[in-house]
């Protein structure tokens, strides 16, 4: 069965460094991946979407890559700030190809803490 794994449950880094979060998937080939941020007690907030034919996508201090050979997506936050502390979730479409819109398969997430 298909499976999503995010690199670790928690990642602690110093302010100003680059945070790198990993999302690995097995047993299917998603057409795209979405990344969300979730703060405690709140719903996830969409950050970036990357398609299988895109190697890299950027938005301000955020960068996401998608390697279909390694079956992996990397999410980078450069010049990290304490305000970036949150849980980050990767989510491909549940059926892989995205034929059913809005139906996502979320990993457990990585809890990022940026300390001053």
């Amino acid at each position, binding site marked *: 069965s298909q499976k999503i794994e995010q690199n670790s449950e928690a990642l602690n880094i110093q302010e100003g460094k680059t945070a790198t979060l990993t999302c690995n998937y097995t047993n299917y080939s998603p057409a795209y991946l979405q990344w969300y941020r979730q703060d405690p007690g709140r719903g996830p907030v*969409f950050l970036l979407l990357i398609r299988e034919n895109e190697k890299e996508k950027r938005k301000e201090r955020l960068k996401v890559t998608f390697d279909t050979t390694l079956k992996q997506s990397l999410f980078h936050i450069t010049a990290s700030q304490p305000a970036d502390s949150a849980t980050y979730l990767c989510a491909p479409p*549940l059926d892989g190809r995205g034929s059913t819109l*809005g139906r996502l398969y979320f990993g457990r997430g990585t809890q990022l803490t940026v300390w001053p």
Partner: protein
Amino acid sequence: DAGVTQSPTHLIKTRGQQVTLRCSPKSGHDTVSWYQQALGQGPQFIFQYYEEEERQRGNFPDRFSGHQFPNYSSELNVNALLLGDSALYLCASSRLETGGNEKLFFGSGTQLSVL
């Protein structure tokens, strides 16, 4: 522009009871998806409503049911509550965008505790 709103924010029920959660989608959105998020886990897809019909369903029992109204708002009903139903229930709205890969807008959720 109001985002996705959910009510109530918190709810405490006992085993065997029934519960109804409500969701109003973001303005302009016509599709509502419901997710269950247990503590320490990612959200799990329950079902999706479009044009007042259940379009897709995840791996949840029939105790979980829903409804979508003509104004696109939606309800999630859970019957015969179990302790394991304790979770954050998230509503997400969306609309088809160019390319077909629309993003989800989530509400803040309803925290359900079953005692």
